[in-house]
């Protein structure tokens, strides 16, 4: 065996599946044959080697845990040696972890990446295409073979594995970039659409101005003409507001300035006129109020005077030429006479009562003799006097009341006169003239009314002047806007017809490049398929040779490589599949499931034997793991297998496990010299400890 590649020197296994106690197998770079009954742990050793080097392939990694001590770490350590190189590969599956972790160290204990240690193996990746073929035991229900993707393996063997990888990535790239291209095209279309929409809007605005042209009935002015008009208006307005026109203004700025000036001018003028008008209105209102008050007061005075005059007439009629003093004197006299009459009447009544009761002869008051006749009661005495008194008293009372009213009238009159005096002063103040008459107040009001009307007229004039100016400004603005829209239309049309070509060309360049990539990809696919097509017949021939030697199948005696149709749109080469042929049915191939299990499993080893002849030089680690090959081969063909194994053993380190030690051992001894083999008999298995090995 060549010493260029790594060989297994020693294997250390602990807490791995059924192996509880640590086990070490010294291989010393020889071919390892593990012989022993089924269930003693041979397969566990083969699997431990595979797991250490490649990890779990698809199945749950938890399966590697030790049955009795799942809380302990599962660990496999393999020492590899080649010429002056040595590597220590250790894989640990710690409790609680979900994945195992490999570490590779060199002779000096320095960590090495898998890619650096085994670049070819790392590139292929487990499990596909590794040179480790693993025919597991049927009973364990484990995976039958590691070569799952025959296409990938074959491409690797033919050293063209880079091409399908490139094709696949080219397809992904073009797919992604096509989507990107669509987004780019959409952004360009969106922009063009946005421009077209804006163009339609601007055209509409332009047409709107044209319907009622601000330049009148003539032809459309040129921009220079419009600018001249704006300049004229600008200077007119500057003069009006007494401003120095700023230099270097654009048309747009000039129009803004004009508008600003016009607004300021109009509002200041209008404010002035309004203030003046308001002031006159206030004066007018005051004059009106004074006039009205004055008029009211005078009316009151007149009414009061009339009333007074009426009362005086009434008093005169009541006095009937007498004075009130005379009448009062009469009242006094009448009162006195009436009082006397009243007293006499009372006395007479008392005397009559006295005479009736006592019949006196002498007066009780003066003791003079009394006349015999009786004193009679005064008949009607004082009645006239009473009526007279009542009459005079009534007149006096009436006159007194009239006098009272007259006094009140006089008081009112006096206060009205005072009021009138005050109002007269107001009138003077209002008219500004001494001894003003109401007529003058009226005149003043009329004057004020006229002034107010005049101011209102001025306000209207100022407003219409302002409106006229604004109309001119708006016309110039519309004219200026018309030119702007015209320029916008020209600019957008230029972008749409010319400028947009630049990004459009960039997109076309992108498109072309993408199309070229696709074209090259298709050519690459064609060339690749052509090469595969030319490689298939000689390859199938060699596969058939090894297959026939291993199986000697009576019906299906050949091997074919079936190629599925390539999918150029996906830059996908047709998948390759290993099939069998029959010389009895030339021109046809059959899927491997037509074979019995033994032949089918043997077929899985065939590609390895065929290809290993010429790819082994590339491999850093050339290792063949075969678990129970005798299950796949009957006795008559077992020696053929040993011959084939012996031929590959020149470059490969074999690890073979078999439960048929009796059949295998003589063949091992026949084909493998003692210095090239390491035969381990698995003689016992303790569920709590693991297998017991014995070196043969």
């Amino acid at each position: 065996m060549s010493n260029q590649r790594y060989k297994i020197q020693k294997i250390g296994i602990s807490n791995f599946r059924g192996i509880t106690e640590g086990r070490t197998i010294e291989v010393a770079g020889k071919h390892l044959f593990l012989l022993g009954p089924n269930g003693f742990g041979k397969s566990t050793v083969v699997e431990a080697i595979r797991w250490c080097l490649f990890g779990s392939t698809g199945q749950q990694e938890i399966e590697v845990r030790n049955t009795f001590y799942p809380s302990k770490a599962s660990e496999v350590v393999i020492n590899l040696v080649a010429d002056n190189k040595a590597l220590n590969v250790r894989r640990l599956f710690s409790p609680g972890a979900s994945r195992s972790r490999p570490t590779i160290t060199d002779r000096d204990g320095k960590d090495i990446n898998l890619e650096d240690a085994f670049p070819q193996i790392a590139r292929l990746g487990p499990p596909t295409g590794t040179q480790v073929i693993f025919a597991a035991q049927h009973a364990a229900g484990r995976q039958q073979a590691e070569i799952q993707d025959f296409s990938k393996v074959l491409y690797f063997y033919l050293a063209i594995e880079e091409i399908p990888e490139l094709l696949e990535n080219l397809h992904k790239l073009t797919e992604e970039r096509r989507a990107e291209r669509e987004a780019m095209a959409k952004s360009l279309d969106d922009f063009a659409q946005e421009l077209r929409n804006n163009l339609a809007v601007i055209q509409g605005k332009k047409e709107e101005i044209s319907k009622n042209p601000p330049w009148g009935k003539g032809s459309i002015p040129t921009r220079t003409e419009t600018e001249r008009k704006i300049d004229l208006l600008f200077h007119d307005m500057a003069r009006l507001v007494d401003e120095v026109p700023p230099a270097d203004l654009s048309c747009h700025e000039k129009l803004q300035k004009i508008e600003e000036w016009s607004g300021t001018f109009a509002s200041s003028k209008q404010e002035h006129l309004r203030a003046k008008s308001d002031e006159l209105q206030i004066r007018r209102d005051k004059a009106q109020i004074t006039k009205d008050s004055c008029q009211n007061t005078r009316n009151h005075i007149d009414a009061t005077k009339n009333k007074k005059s009426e009362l005086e007439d009434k008093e005169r009629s009541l006095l009937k030429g007498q004075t009130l003093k005379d009448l009062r004197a009469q009242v006094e006299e009448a009162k006195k006479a009436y009082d006397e009459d009243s007293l006499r009447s009372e006395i007479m009544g008392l005397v009559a009562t006295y005479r009736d009761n006592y019949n006196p002869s002498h007066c009780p008051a003066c003791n003079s003799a009394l006349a015999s006749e009786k004193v009679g009661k005064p008949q009607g005495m004082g009645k006239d006097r009473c009526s007279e008194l009542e009459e005079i008293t009534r007149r006096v009372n009436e006159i007194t009341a009239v006098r009272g009213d007259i006094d009140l009238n006089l008081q009112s009159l006096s206060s009205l006169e005072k009021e009138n005096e005050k109002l007269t002063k107001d009138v003077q103040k209002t008219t500004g003239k001494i001894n003003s008459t109401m007529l003058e107040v009226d005149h003043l009001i009329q004057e004020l009314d006229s002034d107010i009307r005049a101011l209102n007229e001025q306000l209207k004039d100022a407003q219409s002047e302002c409106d006229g100016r604004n109309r001119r400004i708006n016309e110039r603005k519309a004219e200026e806007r018309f030119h702007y829209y015209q320029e916008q239309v020209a600019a957008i049309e230029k972008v749409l017809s010319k400028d947009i070509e630049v990004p459009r060309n960039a997109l076309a360049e992108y498109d072309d490049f993408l199309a070229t990539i696709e074209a090259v990809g298709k050519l690459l696919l064609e060339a690749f398929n052509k090469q595969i097509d030319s490689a298939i017949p000689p390859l199938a021939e060699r596969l058939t040779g090894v297959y026939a030697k291993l199986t000697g199948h009576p019906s299906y005696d050949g091997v074919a490589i079936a190629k599925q149709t390539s999918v150029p749109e996906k830059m996908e080469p047709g998948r390759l599949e290993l099939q069998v042929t029959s010389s009895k049915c030339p021109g046809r191939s059959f899927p491997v499931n037509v074979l019995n299990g033994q032949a089918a499993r043997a077929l899985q080893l065939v590609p390895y034997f065929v290809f290993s002849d010429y790819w082994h030089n590339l491999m850093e680690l050339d290792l063949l793991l075969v678990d129970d090959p005798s299950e796949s081969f009957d006795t008559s063909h077992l020696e053929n297998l040993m011959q084939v194994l012996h031929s590959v053993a020149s470059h490969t380190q074999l690890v073979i496990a078999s439960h048929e030690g009796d059949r295998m051992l003589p063949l091992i001894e026949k084909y493998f010299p003692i210095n090239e083999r390491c035969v381990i008999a698995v003689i016992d298995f303790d569920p709590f400890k693991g297998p017991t090995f014995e070196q043969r």
Partner: protein
Amino acid sequence: MSDSITRENNLRKILDCISESVASSDARSLWEKIREEMQSGGPDAALQYLNDELTRCKNDFEREITCLRETYSRRRLNE
């Protein structure tokens, strides 16, 4: 052993075959570049080259359309 399954020749044959069949000058120059990249750095290098070229084209496009949009937006702002 048949020449068609000799490792050393297969890739070269495919590459040569494409070189012979590429018709257009664009595709030829692109293929030569891919081949050059493949030979120096493998498929990853070739893909990197294609990605870079496509990104360059895309950036050219983005730059041009952005420039056009900005010019147009500036015009609109002046309105």
